[in-house]
């Protein structure tokens, strides 16, 4: 892996509009940057990343950040647009996390609405958010005590991990 | 959060922040504890006191940005007041002169 500045991790969600997976990536990304790891993350805007950025700063700020820092892409479907974008403009990604994998692990969860997430969609987003947070800790070689100091409702309790969908996960 | 900020080492315009008496004063006759000012202020000047009669206090006066009065505009009851800017400017000039 390239030498990254390991103070913050970039988060880029596919954020696709046409499918519920996109909405889930969006929600999970926001949970991570707002609640779970606010000071360890920078959210990168997928369309801005693609378009370049603000002209007066040389149009490259999103891309440069992903060049210098480890970046996690979050994918809503197998097109993996976010990963493709980062690889095209910045370089290798540090990790890719897929909504589909979570759906496979939790077959009982069936998110359906792409407009506003339903209860299942919200749960998937929460599981995804935790997975991202764990990945961030790993990338920054930091250990976060589980649930430490985080009692926000957006943070799923351990119940969510064993989410009641019938999966065997604890 | 607020604790990271150490006003004793901070300066404003070359004057120790602690020597500048600039912060809001709550008029408790007007305040309805709607908390709009606290919600507004990103510098944690205010603190809620759920169990006390005065449910809001100016807890970190030196976190207040000198000359900023933005929270007063957020106050629907007009219960917040600040010192006179000219007086403060004069004071700062005097201290810089020393």
């Amino acid at each position, binding site marked *: 892996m390239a030498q990254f500045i390991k103070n913050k991790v970039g988060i880029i969600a596919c954020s696709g509009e046409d499918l519920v997976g996109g909405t889930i990536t969006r929600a999970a990304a926001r949970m991570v940057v707002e609640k779970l790891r*606010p000071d360890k993350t*920078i959210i990168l805007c997928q369309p801005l990343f693609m378009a370049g950025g603000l002209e*007066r*700063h040389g149009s490259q700020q999103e891309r440069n950040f992903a060049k210098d820092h480890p970046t996690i892409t979050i994918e809503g479907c197998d097109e993996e647009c976010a990963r493709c974008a980062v690889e095209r403009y910045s370089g290798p990604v540090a990790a890719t996390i897929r909504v589909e994998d979570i759906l496979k692990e939790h077959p009982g969860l069936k998110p359906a609405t792409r407009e506003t997430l339903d209860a299942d969609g919200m749960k998937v987003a929460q599981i995804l958010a935790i997975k991202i947070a764990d990945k961030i800790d790993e990338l920054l070689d930091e250990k976060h005590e589980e649930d430490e100091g985080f009692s926000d409702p957006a943070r799923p309790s351990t119940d969510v991990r064993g989410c009641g969908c019938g999966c065997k996960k604890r | 959060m607020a604790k990271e900020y150490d006003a004793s080492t901070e300066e*404003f315009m070359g004057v120790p922040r602690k020597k500048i008496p600039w912060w809001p004063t709550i008029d408790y006759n007007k305040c309805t504890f709607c908390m709009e000012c606290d919600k*507004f202020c990103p510098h944690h000047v205010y603190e809620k006191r759920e169990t006390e009669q005065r449910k809001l206090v100016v807890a970190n006066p030196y976190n207040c940005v000198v000359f900023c009065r933005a929270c007063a505009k957020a106050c629907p009851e007009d219960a917040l007041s600040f010192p006179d800017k000219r007086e403060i*400017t004069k004071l700062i*000039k005097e201290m*810089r002169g020393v």
Partner: protein
Amino acid sequence: MAERKTVILPCNGLDKALGVVAGRAGIVACAKDPGIKLVCPVLLNSGEPKYDEMVKDADIICLNGCMTRCATKLAESRKIPVKTNLLVPDMVKKFNLKPGTDLVLQTSGVQLPEAIADDIITSIKKDRESMAQEIHSIEVEDKAEYFETKKDKFYFKVPKGAYLFNENDCWVRVFGGLAYLGISDFLQNQVGDILYVDLPAIGKEFGQFDEAGSFESVKSVQDLISPVSGKVVAVNNQLASAPELANQDPYHKGWFVKVELADFDEDKGLLLDGPAYFEFMKKKIELEAKKQH
């Protein structure tokens, strides 16, 4: 933008046709351009207080009928600052219209006041245009060099010269006795996308560190805390329809207010130049980052 008032003080001496021409020219100019006001020299001389308000902050033109320059002297005695002194004999030459000696003006004597009035109106227009030109100059990105620093994916710029700052992250750029005010790149970054900008009324006076406008984003409402004392002569009306200019181009097209400086020599003692503000801003950025922890 602000249009300054123009006030004409004619001599209106009644012992010479030249004086009658001066008075007449003032009347015609007022009739042609309602933005121009006329001061009656006789009433002014009697100590009439109503003119105090009128001449305040206005461009005063003294229109003298002869070399005695009564209008100019009158203005001086009343401590009214004069912008332009005109002499009717100069105008006679300029337009080659001799008024004759008859106090009841005849032919060319009637034409001359018309010509003088037109001349005055044209020069006012030119003044306004050159003022607009000046505005244009701050809106065009000059070759100013910038200091730049980066925090994560955010970039912050500070012009190296020409701009002075206060520690409330607002800037002033001086052009002679006038100055533009705005917010720094750091401040616009802090508040995020600016949605609404409220600007002060033309003519409003404020002291150093008073509010000279405010702006609002989803995150917050903040004031432009003026680095200087002065009086508003113009505001950037473009910000009403395009508040994003304050985000995109905070040092040029995103200017807020233009002021006539009150006491810049005194004010500037409390301001930072580009290099000093850049160092100050970098510390602030680090402090903000720490606070987020």
